[in-house]
């Protein structure tokens, strides 16, 4: 079947999509967007988290056909969405780099999308809010402390730049 979907602001089309295929497979294997990671394929790990019509979801649990006519944002689209210049990172991405929140990097795209959604909804989240928002994203390297640091850092920087503006 044919699937038309807007990904990171661009209309995309894929043909010969298998009906049982996931949105994750569509993104990675047909649309050349390997940022969303494929790990558990059962919604446990959050590595494939994307925004579907603005809502964070596990792309492995969305049938590709369900994304037809919908709007998807992946990790590849975060910088442009945040208004970052070409070749630059979004504030959340930069904070992950600066806080050392990336080790092997496999869980990072999903965490970035989830953290980006949290800070959009709540620019000044409590630690409990951050833990809750990231509770569906597993990391097996860092022990989460630096990831929490990164989200706090991104929130603090956004608050500062907001005051400066």
């Amino acid at each position, binding site marked *: 079947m044919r699937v038309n979907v807007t990904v990171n602001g661009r209309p995309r089309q894929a043909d010969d999509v298998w009906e049982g295929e996931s949105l994750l497979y569509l993104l990675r294997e047909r649309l050349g967007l390997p940022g969303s990671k494929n790990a558990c394929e059962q919604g446990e790990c959050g590595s494939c988290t994307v925004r579907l019509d603005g809502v964070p979801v*596990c792309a492995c649990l969305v*049938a590709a*056909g369900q994304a*037809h006519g919908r709007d998807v944002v992946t990790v590849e689209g975060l910088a442009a969405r945040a208004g970052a210049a070409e070749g630059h990172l979004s504030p959340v991405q930069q904070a992950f780099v600066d806080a050392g929140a990336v080790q092997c990097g496999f869980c990072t795209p999903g965490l970035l999308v989830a953290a980006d959604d949290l800070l959009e909804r709540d620019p000044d989240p409590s630690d409990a809010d951050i833990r809750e928002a990231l*509770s*569906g994203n597993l990391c097996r390297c860092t022990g989460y402390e630096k990831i929490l640091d990164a989200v706090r850092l991104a929130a603090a920087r956004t608050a500062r730049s907001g005051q400066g503006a």
Partner: protein
Amino acid sequence: MDFLRPARWEEALAAKAEHPAAVPIAGGTDVMVEINFDHRRPSHLLDLTRVTELYTWQDAGDRVRLGAAVPYARVIERLAGELPGLALAARTVGSPQIRNRGSVGGNLGAASPAGDSHPALLAAGAEVEAESVRGTRLIPVEEFYTGVKRNALAPDELIRAVHVRKATGPQQFSKVGTRNAMVIAVCAFALALHPDTRTVRTGIGSAAPTPVRARTAEDFLNAALAEARCWDTGAPVPPAVAAEFARLASAACRPIDDVRGSAAYRRHAVGVMARRTLAWAWEQHTTGEGTARCA
């Protein structure tokens, strides 16, 4: 495999009548796992995400008619007042990503004994609105679960909504798992006080082939609370009554040993949760205060 995309409910019913083996899919949190792992290769997937009315709910007097595909996130945000037990259960489902997609209708369709909604629906009192091209019927939720991952739907029926009785008193939900997120219940227990009828109802999850009410425990407790005039006086539930209630709740289980826990552990834990949820709900009832505790 065919992917059916009805835009309207009537089209969905017609498609299900034409292809009774079609698997309905909304949030995909169960169905896609089965497909990803090659456990299921349905001839047709029936995508319900374009049928907008499934994502709405209506006030129906003493009930809420909850559209089958309303995500858990909406239940938590919008319905915690009318359906506090279901909202508590919804909070324990998966993760934010899963709660954004999964729904009570999906829980009912899958009919896993471990589904988090079921104990809360049993305790509150609910009916499943099943519809086909032949018509609509309301199935009491107690009769809906017919076996492990089996339900009372006919092959041509779809779940349109679930009618849940609005709370008239405190409701509690407790679930045992290894962490606070991404947990399939080892076992779960829901309890609802119904001061209007001076009754207590319960629901047990993941400790029998289907979700069940602990009816003997309910009957005992209802009689004991009446005899001790607790509803009149607001006196605490006598400890001996609470202990016997817990024992009977435990006895209502028919658990198995599996990777998540042993049968003996489940029986024990259900008794503990029965006693605790009763104490929390009764305290809320008699003090009029909400309690926020880790279950």
